[in-house]
């Protein structure tokens, strides 16, 4: 961001109010959402009442004095976009972390929404090789979907894996409150895969002020829109972690004396999150923005305001869970859901995909019931025993995140397991598919 003062810019030096995140002063002719530099720190107008302008300071107000210098920029936050972005990492203000300049056009971030009638229905399958995703929760370009995971789960690793296998033209990483370790991890993984020239990163680490995070997703999505609209590229945006982003929202709303709604989050949380996630889009000209996000949970609680609102906005969610029976992390088939999968499964994949998927999950549910029975000390029926055996193998051969196979192979594996443990009537899929694909191993 430009910090040098231009001759015609008006400079103010008298602050009338200071809080932990905002300052107020008397100023005239200021536009809403306008940027300013307060004592060298970036700030944005969040409220104007008559002559009193309230600014939110992204870096926090520590040490700012009432006579601090305030310079208004006369514009909203912007990002310079161009091919030059590729292969580089930026801070929350869109400045290269390694230093240097960016050549490109200046764009306002947080721009307008796509007209819904100008969107195209997503229809391109994104294979990841992970059966817990491809078989049960297939991803589609233009989709937005978060991982719901507890902080101790390897969501960043899985996300990096998905990103690399997804064959995207550009991968845009938006790190909010990312630990420095994870930031370096992402950098290494992409580097080792030789994909660094396809990556653009906007990083706010835990070392940076939390309110700065609020700029990160808009920066990343503006870059994504540039590549998707102007270059017709398939862009994959990784947002991690949206819970920390929401925390920053609540800090700001708290400082502005707004009445908090559920879980101390601002009442506008739904709209704030939707504005970002809805940038996911499939354009008719082939460009697309797909968003994979992370929402960390506390103790698996999805009724908390952040995962709850997210669930209503995104097109499904992916749940990671450690399966103690096989000692691996799996994609939970019950709680995970990809809403757009219907657009590709059985259409872009084999015809029987939907039925196989549903049948396997239903049998896995039967196994869960059998397990409850077993834990309560009741006798198991023959069917219970078989479904428990099935569940174990299903979990390790298909649900585990270390699986990396083609979709057809996933279906074959499923039939293998069906045939090994069940009769066709117990599986309940359409007769014509049974005739065509069923494998009798028994």
């Amino acid at each position: 961001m430009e910090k040098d003062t231009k001759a015609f810019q008006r400079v103010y030096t008298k602050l009338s109010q200071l809080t932990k995140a905002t300052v107020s002063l008397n100023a005239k002719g200021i536009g809403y959402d306008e940027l300013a530099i307060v004592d060298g720190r970036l700030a944005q107008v969040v409220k104007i009442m008559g002559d009193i302008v309230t600014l939110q300071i992204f870096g926090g107000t520590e040490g700012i004095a009432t006579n601090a210098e305030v310079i208004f920029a006369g514009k909203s936050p912007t990002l310079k976009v161009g091919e030059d972005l590729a292969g580089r990492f930026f801070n929350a203000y869109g400045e290269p972390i390694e230093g240097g300049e960016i050549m490109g056009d200046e764009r306002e971030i947080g721009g307008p929404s796509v007209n819904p009638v100008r969107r195209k229905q997503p229809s391109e399958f994104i294979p990841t090789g992970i059966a817990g995703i491809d078989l049960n929760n297939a991803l589609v370009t233009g989709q937005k979907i978060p991982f719901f995971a507890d902080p101790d789960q390897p969501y960043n690793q899985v996300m990096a894996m998905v990103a690399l296998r997804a064959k995207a033209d550009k991968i845009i990483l938006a790190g909010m409150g990312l630990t420095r370790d994870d930031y370096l991890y992402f950098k290494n993984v992409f580097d080792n895969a030789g994909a660094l020239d396809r990556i653009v990163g906007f990083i706010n680490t835990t070392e940076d002020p939390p309110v700065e995070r609020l700029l990160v997703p808009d920066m990343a999505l503006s870059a994504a829109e540039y590549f998707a609209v102007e270059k017709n590229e398939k862009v994959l945006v990784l947002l991690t972690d949206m819970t920390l982003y929401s925390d920053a929202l609540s800090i700001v709303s708290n400082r502005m004396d707004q009445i908090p709604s559920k879980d101390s989050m601002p009442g506008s949380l739904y709209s704030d999150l939707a504005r970002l996630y809805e940038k996911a889009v499939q354009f008719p000209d082939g460009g697309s923005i797909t968003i994979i996000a992370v929402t960390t949970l506390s103790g698996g609680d999805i009724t908390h305001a952040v995962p709850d609102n997210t669930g209503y906005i995104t097109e499904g969610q992916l749940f990671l869970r450690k399966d103690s029976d096989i000692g691996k992390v799996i994609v939970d088939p019950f709680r995970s859901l990809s809403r757009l999968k219907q657009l590709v499964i059985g259409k872009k994949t084999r015809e029987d995909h939907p039925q196989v998927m549903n049948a396997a999950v239903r049998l896995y549910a039967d196994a869960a019931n059998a397990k409850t029975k077993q834990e309560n000390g009741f006798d198991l029926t023959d069917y219970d025993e078989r479904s428990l055996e099935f569940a174990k193998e299903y979990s390790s051969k298909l649900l585990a995140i270390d699986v990396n196979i083609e979709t057809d192979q996933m279906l074959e594996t499923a039939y293998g397991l069906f045939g090994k443990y069940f009769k066709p009537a117990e599986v309940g899929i359409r007769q014509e598919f049974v005739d065509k694909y069923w494998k009798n191993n028994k």
Partner: protein
Amino acid sequence: MNTIGNVTGIIANLVIVETEGTTAQNEICFIKHGDTRLMAEVIKVVGNKSYIQVFESTRGLKIGTEVEFMGHMLEVTLGPGILSKNFDGLQNDLNKMDGVFLKRGEYTDPLDMDKKYEFKPLAKEGDKVEAGSWLGEVRENWIPHKIMVPFKFKGGYTVKSLKKKGEYTPDEAIAVLIDSDGKEHKVTMVQKWPVKVPIRAYKDKPRPFKIMETGIRVMDTLNPMAEGGTGFIPGPFGSGKTVLQHNLSKNAEADLVVIAACGERANEVVEIFTEFPELEDPRSGRKLMERTTIIANTSNMPVAAREASVYTAMTISEYYRAMGLKVLLLADSTSRWAQALREMSNRMEELPGPDGFPMDLSAIIANFYARAGFVYLPDGESGSITFIGTVSPAGGNLKEPVTESTKKVARCFYALSQQRADSKRYPAIDPIESYSKYLEYPEIAEYLNKNISENWTESVLKAKDILLRGKEAYEQINILGDDGVPVDYHIRYWKSELIDFVILQQDAFDKVDASSSLERQDYMLRKTLEVTDFDFSFESFEDVGPYFKRMINALKQMNYSEFDSDKFKKNEKELEAILKEQEKEKVKEEAQ
């Protein structure tokens, strides 16, 4: 002369305007921001300050900017050409907008004023008419679109002259009316109406007395929706609300479907844009899009227009109802609308009600639901609006204010259960929690027994009873263990599972199973009850499940086959063969 004011305060999309002139609650105004005009609505007036909510982003707006008050409330334009359009919440035609991105301050005409319509007069000179009387009709797609006396006209009028049969554009005067004072009024095909005010151009609004077929078994059979009735679908995310609503819009027996996509995902609207022009209406054989109108305020579109979007959709529905049509109005989701109210109430620093929602939320919801209904029109014809809204309860908790307020006013409750969704039992409508008050209406019961089959309601109650008893038996089995209960409990449980799998569950993505005719529903219910009426006997509880699963499989294959086809009959025979095995068992037992 319109009132002019100046901006004195800005907090996000709440703007405070100081003016010396007159302003009114809910009055529309425009902020002259550079070359663009931003539309806004007055939501509070204190002294000479008007608080307005702007329907657009306020980025860059400055203190002192001029604001013009328009002297009317938010209005929609009613006339031929609404059908099959994609509007935003303020009735701008989205297809007429340029570019990929929505531009701030771009407003487009909802109708096509250059298009000529073939007009046919229905009234004649000298006729006494009133608001809502039919003067003539034009053809809109396949619908005989009535040209009515504008709803704003009060009292009685006499038709002075009427255009002859011929082609006219919507803005040409087609009639001249004389009021009681002898003053002349020109009438075109187009009229305007404020969205927040119900259109009351009808004679009578009786209790609903017939059902609206939806093709969804768990609704039609177990919890029927009445024509002109109201219902709501609350459910946690991922429980299939939207799939259910889309399925309703595809299969419901309605002349017209108005969909208010209120604060939901853009891709869901795109799905309608993409699929409806291709899909056929199972009843008329026409393309679904021909009967569908979409009001889209997706979650990334301006929040303030969200509230407007549901009212716009309701007003359009009322307009078509006044033409004697059966309208189905779907709103997904009313919670987003309530949240929009909350955001604004918060910015205005009002004292919050429960969960931060405004205190009058309950009254707002009740008033809105009350606008639906079956009506008799002035000339004896009838029309209806059936309204089904979804509710997205925070955290899936049905004790939150939006769900509770809605439950008080909606007559049908379709509770979506997370548990059913988790085990992929779709549609995930909970058979025990859900209800339709209409089933208790004697006029509806009579209608059902007359139009579907004798003793229909009795059969439905019986099926519900089996489901409840099955659930109880299942709980007992879970507490006492499989062998801790009599075999009879297992039979009871599996009977309810049979109804669950065959009647309740329905594959919305299967070509055949997606929609089931009433005739077919009647057949399947009777078939299922035939099975559950059977007096089964098993030696061990272990035999019950596998046996029932075979019957369920046969019945499910019937659901997947065209009604009365060879495949259907083949599967039915299979079922009978399975039942025969039990009969043989019985004979054996008795012989011993």
